[in-house]
C-alpha cells in the first residue's frame, strides 16, 4: 500500500475519440479515490495506463514515490479488478485466487493460508473448489476482488465494480467494499459513472470529462464546492438560472432573479449560471415572497414519505427536482411554485466558467414523460372538487395564519397548455 501519484498523463489514439489530454491526481496512502465521469471520458484509460496495459505518450505514474511508468504490468504491483471480471475460466475459485501468489513463487502452505484468509474475507469459505462459471454474479465479483487482493498490490483499482449488479445488491456491496478496503488500509481507485458509488465508497473524488480532470479533492469538498458548472452538474446540481448579472442579481426572463451570494465574483452585464442541488431545494407556494427568486410550475410530483418530491419546470425550458415540505398535500401539476434554498447552497458561475449548457439527463426524461401525460387529451382532468381543496388548505394555512391562495389562477397555466 502506497501513495499513488499520476502526473500529466497524456495518451492519444489515432482512431478513437477518447484521449487523455493532461491528467494529474494523487491518492494518499490508504485512501479510496473515485474517478467519476460520463462514459467515454477516459476513466478506464487512466486505469489501463496506471496498470501498464497501455503505454503513455507523456507523463509519469508513481507508486510509493517511485516511478513505475516504464515497468511492464507484471512488475508494477498494481491490482485491477476488471469491469468484466476476467476470471480465468480454466481454473476454479481457489486457482484464480492463487494465481498471483504462484507468480510470486509462494509455497503451497503459504498460499493455502492466504487463500483461506481471503475466502473468509469475501465470504466464500466453502466455495474454493467451485468452477467460476457455477457462481452467481455477486460471488464472481467477490472472487475477482479476492484474486486482485491476494498478492497485496500497492494500489487496487476497481473498474465499475458494481456495474453488473442489481440495485439492491449494489447498495449492500458499496458499504461492504468501503468497510473492507478501509480495514485492509488499501490505497484504492474506483472508476464509476454512478455518483452514488463514489459517495458511498470513496474518500476522494476525481471528476473527469473529455480526457481531463475537472476537479479532484475530498468528496465532501467537491460536492459542496464544485469548481465548474460541469462538475456541479455531474455531482447532481441542476441549473436554476442562466441570466445576466445586474445590481448583484442574476435575472432571466420568465424564470426570476436570484441575488448573487457573497464571495462570488462578477460585474454587471456578465452572463451567470446559477445551480442548485435538489437535496437543498425546497418548493414553496408562489406569491408569499418565501422563495429565493426562482419561479416555476409543477411538472409532476411523487410522494416521498409524508412529503413529496416535485419536478418543477422553469420557464418551460428545464426542470429541477425539489422537495415539497409545506404540507401533506403536494401541489398538482400546473401549480406555480417558488423555489427556496439556503443562500450558501447555490453555486454561481460566470459565463467563462460554463463549458457548455448541459442538462442533467434524468429530470429531463421525467419532464418529457410528464408533459406527454399532460398533453394527452384522453387523460382525465385533474379537476379536484373545487370546494374541498381550498377549504382543506385554508384550514391548514389558517393555523399558520396565512391567507388562502385563490386556486383557479394556479391551475390556469396547465389548462392553457392542455388546450394548446
Amino acid at each position, binding site marked *: 500500500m502506497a501513495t499513488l501519484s499520476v502526473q500529466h498523463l497524456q495518451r492519444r489514439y489515432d482512431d478513437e475519440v477518447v484521449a487523455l489530454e493532461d491528467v494529474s491526481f494523487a491518492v494518499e496512502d490508504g485512501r479510496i479515490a473515485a474517478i467519476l465521469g460520463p462514459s467515454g471520458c477516459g476513466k478506464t484509460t487512466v486505469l489501463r495506463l496506471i496498470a501498464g*496495459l497501455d503505454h503513455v505518450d507523456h507523463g509519469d505514474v508513481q507508486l510509493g514515490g517511485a516511478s513505475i511508468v516504464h515497468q511492464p504490468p*507484471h512488475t508494477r504491483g*498494481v*491490482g*485491477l479488478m*476488471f469491469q*468484466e471480471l*476476467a476470471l*480465468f475460466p480454466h481454473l476454479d475459485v481457489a486457482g484464480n485466487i492463487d494465481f498471483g501468489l504462484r507468480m510470486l513463487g509462494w509455497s503451497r502452505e503459504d498460499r493455502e493460508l492466504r487463500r483461506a484468509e481471503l475466502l473468509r474475507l469475501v465470504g466464500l469459505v466453502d466455495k474454493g473448489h467451485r468452477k467460476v462459471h457455477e457462481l452467481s454474479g455477486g460471488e464472481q465479483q467477490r472472487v475477482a476482488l479476492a484474486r486482485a487482493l491476494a*498478492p497485496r498490490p500497492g494500489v487496487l483499482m476497481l473498474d465499475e465494480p458494481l456495474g453488473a449488479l442489481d440495485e439492491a445488491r449494489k447498495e449492500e456491496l458499496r458499504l461492504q467494499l468501503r468497510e473492507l478496503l478501509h480495514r485492509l488500509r488499501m490505497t484504492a481507485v474506483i472508476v464509476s459513472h454512478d455518483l452514488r458509488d463514489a459517495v458511498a465508497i470513496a474518500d476522494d473524488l476525481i471528476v473527469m470529462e473529455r480526457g481531463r480532470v475537472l476537479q479532484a479533492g475530498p468528496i465532501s469538498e467537491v460536492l459542496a464546492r464544485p469548481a465548474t458548472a460541469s462538475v456541479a452538474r455531474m455531482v447532481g446540481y441542476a441549473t436554476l438560472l442562466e441570466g445576466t448579472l445586474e445590481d448583484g442579481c442574476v435575472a432571466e426572463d420568465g424564470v426570476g432573479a436570484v441575488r448573487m451570494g457573497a464571495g462570488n465574483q462578477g460585474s454587471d452585464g456578465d452572463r451567470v449560471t446559477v445551480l442548485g442541488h435538489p437535496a437543498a431545494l425546497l418548493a414553496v407556494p408562489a406569491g408569499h415572497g418565501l422563495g429565493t427568486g426562482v419561479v416555476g410550475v409543477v411538472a409532476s410530483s411523487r410522494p416521498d414519505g409524508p412529503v413529496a418530491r416535485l419536478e418543477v419546470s422553469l420557464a418551460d425550458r428545464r426542470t429541477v427536482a425539489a422537495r415539497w415540505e409545506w404540507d401533506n398535500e403536494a401541489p398538482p401539476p400546473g401549480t406555480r411554485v417558488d423555489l427556496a434554498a439556503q443562500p450558501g447552497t447555490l453555486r454561481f458561475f460566470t459565463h467563462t466558467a460554463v463549458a457548455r449548457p448541459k442538462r442533467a439527463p434524468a429530470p429531463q426524461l421525467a419532464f418529457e414523460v410528464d408533459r406527454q401525460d399532460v398533453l394527452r387529451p384522453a387523460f382525465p382532468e385533474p379537476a379536484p372538487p373545487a370546494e374541498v381543496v381550498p377549504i382543506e388548505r385554508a384550514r391548514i394555512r389558517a393555523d399558520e395564519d396565512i391567507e388562502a391562495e385563490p386556486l383557479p389562477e394556479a391551475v390556469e397555466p396547465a389548462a392553457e397548455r392542455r388546450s394548446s
Partner: protein
Amino acid sequence: MNRIALVPARVWWGIVPLLLIGPFLLWPLGAMLWRAFVIDSGTGASPTLEVVRAVATDGYTWKRLAFTTGQALASTALTLAIGIPAAYVFANVRFPGRTVLRAVATLPFVLPTIVVALAFQRLVGSGGWLNDALGLIGLGPIQATGTLGMILAAHVFYNVSIVLRIVSGVWANLDPRAEEAARLLGATRFGAFRRVTFPALLPAIASSAALVFTFTFTSFGVVLILGGPGLDTLEVTIYRLATRLLQLPEAAVLSFVQMGATLGALVLYAALQRRMTVPLRPRSDRARPWRETSRGERILVAGVLAALALLIGAPILALVHGALTVGGGFGLDNFGRLFEDTGRVSYIEPLSAIRWSLTFAIGATLLASVVGLAAAAAIARTTGRWASVLDGLLMLPLAVPAVVLGFGYLVTFNRGWYDLRGSPWLLLAAHALIAYPFVLRSVLAVFRSRDPRLPEAAALLGASPVRVWRFVEVPIAARALLVGAVFSFAVSLGEFGATLLLQRPQYATMPVAIFQALGRPGQANLGQALAMAVILLLVTAAGFLLIERFRYQELGEF
C-alpha cells in the same frame, strides 16, 4: 516511450509461420510463376505467351476445366441435397442413437481419400458387393468404376460431413424464439422458416457449399482411382502433365488456373464464415427445448438415416469386409501379408510405409501445432484491416492444391544446396504446411472468443509474458489445440497428392503404398492394399473420436 511496444508481439508470433510458408510455399509458388511465365528451362527464351496461348487454345484444357467445374458443382448440389435434410434431423429431432450417429456421419471428412476411393471400389467396382449381389440374382456385372456417378458418390460421401457439421451446428444453436415470434406475428410455419430460419442458416449453407466446391474442384485421389478416360480433373491433369508427360510449363499454367479458382472459393468461404459467427451461443443438448417429433419428421429421420447408411455405412463395411475376406472365408491373412517381403525392386514394403506414415504424421503434427498456434496468436493480436490480410496469407496453404504444391517443390528444390529431391524432410514440410491451417482455425476460434482481458489480468497478477502464455493462453487453448493436432495428424496420414509427387519408395507412406498395390495385379496385392486401408481407417477414426470427445461446442469451423 515504452520499450515493450517497439516490436509488437504479433510480429514475433508472425515470424514463426513465415519461416514455414516463406521457403515452403511462397518460394515454390514464385518459382512456378517464373517457370510458367518467364523462362523456358531449355532455351532460356520466354515462350510465356506461347504456352499460355497453347493452353488457352487447346480444346483439351477447356474440356478439363469445364469438366472439373461441372463435377464440382454437381457434387456440391448433391452434397447439399443430402446434407441439409441430415443437418435438420441431427439438429432438431431427437431420436435414439442421435449423438453416436452424428459422430459417425461426420467421420468421412477426415478419412484419407485413398481409403474412400478404395471403399467405393469395394462397394460398386468389379468384384465389389454390388456386382456380387447382381451375380447372385443372375445379372451380369456392371462397370461402375470409371463413371461420373462413382466420382460424385465418393465426393458426396466425404463432403456431406462438412455440410452436416457446419449447418447442423448453426441450426441447433438458433434461438427457437425467433421463429416462434414470427409465428405469433402471423407467419405460417413455412413462412416463418422462409423469413426467419432460412436467412439465419444461409451463411452457413453458403459457406459449407463454398468449402465443398473447393474440395471437389481440387479432388485428386478419388478421381485418379475411380475416374477413367475423359474424367480427369484439373488436378489430375496437372499430375499427369508434370510426371508422365513432363510438360512443366503447361502444368505450371494450369496450376495457377487451379489456384485462382480455389482462392476465389475460399475467399467467399471466409467472407461467409465471418457473417456466420454473429448470433451463436452454444447450448447443451439438455438445455434445449425439444419439440414433439411429428410423423413427417419420423419419416424424414428414417429417410436420412437410410441415405447415410447407404452412402457412408455401406462403403466402409464393404472395405472392411474385403480386407477380412480370404478366399471363400474370413481371416486376417491380408494383414499377415503386410509382413511379407516380396523383394521386388521399387516395391514399397507395407511395414516401412506404416512406419513412415506415422513418422510423418507425428512430425507434421508437432510442427503444425507450433506453427498454427503462433499463427493464431499473431492474427489474434492484430486488429483492423491487417488482421484479414494476415489471416488470408496464413490460410494460403488451404488454397494451394496438394498436387500443385508437390509440383512446385519439384521445380524448386532441384539444384544446388537446396536440392532436396529424395529427402523425407521435404515431405515433412509439405505435410506440416498442409496441416497447420487446421490448428490455426481451431485455436484462433478460442483466441477470438475468450475474454481479451484474461492475459491482462494475468499480467497484473504478476505473470511475465512467458508465464501468461504458459498459465493462461495455452491451458485455455489446450482443447482446441488438441482438436487441431488430431486434424493435422489425420490430414498428414491421408495426404496423397503432394506425397505421390515427392515420395521415394524408401520413405513412401501408406496412401502411396495402397495406390501402388492397386496398380499391380493379383489378389495378394489387393489384400495388402485393403489391409493398409483398414489400418488407416482405424487410426483416423480413433483420432476423430478423440476430437468428438474434446470438441467444446457444436460449431467447428471445419
